[in-house]
């Protein structure tokens, strides 16, 4: 690794790559070496990746069979979700540090394989997450300080604004077609609430009950995937959690996605609302709310990327590692099994390692 700058290669440039690349490039500690694709990439993914390179003004490095040929320290895997695990394993095998977009993988088997690959690889593996966001960091500090005593229950709402579906998702198939997305909105979004719940409680989910439904959107109906779900989780130490998650026509926020959370403890409770504190503007267009923490999701990603870059340059393992990514997929796996069986399902054992 260059002592001063982290050399970053994007492997595939679908969806969130369009926002991650500018964030990383804005970091003076980062050098974007280019954008590459996988030799097996389908035509649409290849054209998306080429388009990303062109729009960002960075080199398109083709579809190399051996990633080790490209001088890079960190490979950012930002493909359709169904290729996340395979591309991440390729990059790990090439000896690179890897950042994979969420979800970590689209099945428990893939997640387990990827986690094992990371354990064997010389490089580190991390996953895009929102745990560095100001609101969740404050909440974690309060919990760690003992201000609410022992956490007993966590409730998380994570809702995406369907009104922004067209502008926020370039191609709906990337989140509704199982051949590309690997599942529906449960796979797409549940990883975030699971991150929050594990982060705030330090407890691992052991049982999941999930009710899923396709309530609002025609593309989801067409592909037979859920747009919404409500869940009940049992965690270690008897802690419980509830989740309301999905894409709804009008989320109660002015941003594409938002979350709120409540944590009940033995000696107090706390609330988290990404939209607050805020400055409210009243004008001809009605109410506009400007959260003081900024646009929460993008700010959370920006802060995470900055932390990751710092960790890698310092030779430290990222705080969010493969065990965390695996744990999110294990809960999603249990949730889909529960939705199918109509009963609570155990989460596959093997989480932890934080």
């Amino acid at each position, binding site marked *: 690794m260059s002592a001063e700058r982290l050399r970053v290669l994007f492997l595939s440039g679908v969806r969130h790559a369009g926002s991650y690349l500018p964030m990383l490039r804005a970091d003076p500690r980062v050098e974007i070496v280019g954008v590459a694709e996988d030799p097996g990439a389908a035509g649409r993914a290849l054209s998306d990746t080429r388009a990303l390179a062109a729009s960002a003004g960075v080199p398109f490095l083709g579809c190399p069979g051996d990633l080790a040929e490209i001088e890079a320290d960190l490979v950012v895997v930002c493909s359709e979700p169904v290729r996340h695990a395979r591309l991440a394993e390729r990059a790990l095998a090439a000896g690179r540090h890897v950042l994979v977009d969420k979800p970590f993988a689209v099945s428990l088997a893939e997640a387990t394989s990827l986690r094992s690959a990371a354990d064997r690889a010389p490089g580190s593996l991390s996953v895009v997450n929102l745990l560095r966001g100001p609101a969740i960091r404050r909440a974690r500090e309060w919990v760690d300080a003992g201000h609410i005593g022992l956490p*007993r*229950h966590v*409730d998380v*709402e994570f809702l995406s604004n369907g009104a922004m579906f067209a502008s926020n998702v370039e191609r709906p198939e990337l989140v509704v077609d199982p051949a590309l997305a690997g599942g529906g909105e449960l796979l797409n979004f549940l990883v975030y609430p699971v991150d929050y719940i594990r982060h705030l409680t330090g407890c691992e989910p052991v049982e999941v*009950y999930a*009710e899923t*439904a*396709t*309530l*609002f959107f025609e593309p989801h109906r067409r592909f037979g995937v859920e747009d*919404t*779900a*409500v*869940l*009940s989780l*049992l965690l270690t130490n*008897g802690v*419980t959690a*509830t989740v*309301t998650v*999905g894409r*709804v*026509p*009008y*989320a*109660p926020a002015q941003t594409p996605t938002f979350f*709120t959370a*409540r944590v*009940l403890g*033995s*000696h*107090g*409770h706390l*609330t988290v609302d990404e939209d607050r504190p805020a400055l409210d503007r009243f004008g001809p267009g009605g109410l506009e709310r400007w959260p003081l923490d900024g646009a929460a999701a993008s700010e959370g990603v920006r802060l995470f990327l900055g932390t990751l870059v710092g960790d890698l340059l310092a030779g430290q393992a990222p705080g969010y590692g493969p065990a965390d990514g695996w744990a999110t997929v294990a809960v999603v796996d249990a949730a889909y099994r529960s939705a199918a069986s*109509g*009963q*609570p399902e155990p989460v596959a054992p093997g989480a932890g390692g934080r």
Partner: protein
Amino acid sequence: MTATGVGVAILGSGGIAREHAAALARLPGVEVRYVVGGDLARSRGVAALAPGAVATTDLERALADPAVQGVDVCGVTPLHAPLTIRAARAGKHVHVEKPAALSMAGLHEMIAEVRARRLTLMTGQTVRFQPGVAALHRAVAAGEIGAVHLLRVGWYTGYVWAGGWRGWQLDPARSGGHPVHNGTHAFDLLVWLMRDRRPTRVFVRSFRTLSPDVPVPDSFHATVRFDDGSLALVELSYALRERGASLRRVLAVGDRGTLRHEDDGDSGLHSEAARAPSASVDGAIGAQMAHWAAVLRGETEPITTPRQMCLTLATALAAQRSLVTGRAVDVPEAADVR
């Protein structure tokens, strides 16, 4: 009683009976004629809140009084069904405290008895009269957000049932358990906001914060699936540490909009001298009793329909079974009435 007035008898002498007596006494044209209870001293205390009310242990005396048009069944839940049936057979309209009954058979018999005599039956779903909830329902009913398909109801409070340690509320056989005793409010709200769609499956998880060995958990949550696939999540907790604290959040998501109500932005009193109820829940029992008085005068139909009562109780009973078994429980279709 005047030509336009109504006379009522309150059965019970506990906390709810006291609140009802005080609220009814404030209504013009309403006369509380009897407070009937097994403990005469307690009944006198309730009757004192309604000038002219007679405290008695004699139920038949109250039911035989032609000046009594309505009977308000308070008291312990196991008595709700038998007292409602006795009142109906005496020709009285009935307001019954929630939960309406402890079994579907009991509720079906209550409904059959009042219907056979063209009487009215209303359940004390006080939450419907809270200003915040009432406004939410008006907006849903007016079609402001289209068809509602996703509901989230979270009610956290810092409150322990008065006398609960020795009270019947902590005996699931007498209260039905927390999903029935208090969950009835939330399940009724779901049914009301979902415009009578039928809950089909419920799953419940609970936890105990206040005392680990009490038979009724202080907190629980439930997922509910409806017959059209719509979903709901309910959370009830009495575990907030500060007495009187409240954290309420309701989301109703429709295909044309979303409604949100939270009480943390309410106008409020912050004083060491006293606490005041949250403005978004205040005055509910007064509005509830005023509505029942209007029902007794024939001016309106009861806000709770027999079908809603059945859907609510069936869901609550299934929820209690889920809490006990740890399994998702189907809400029986046979519980429904038209």
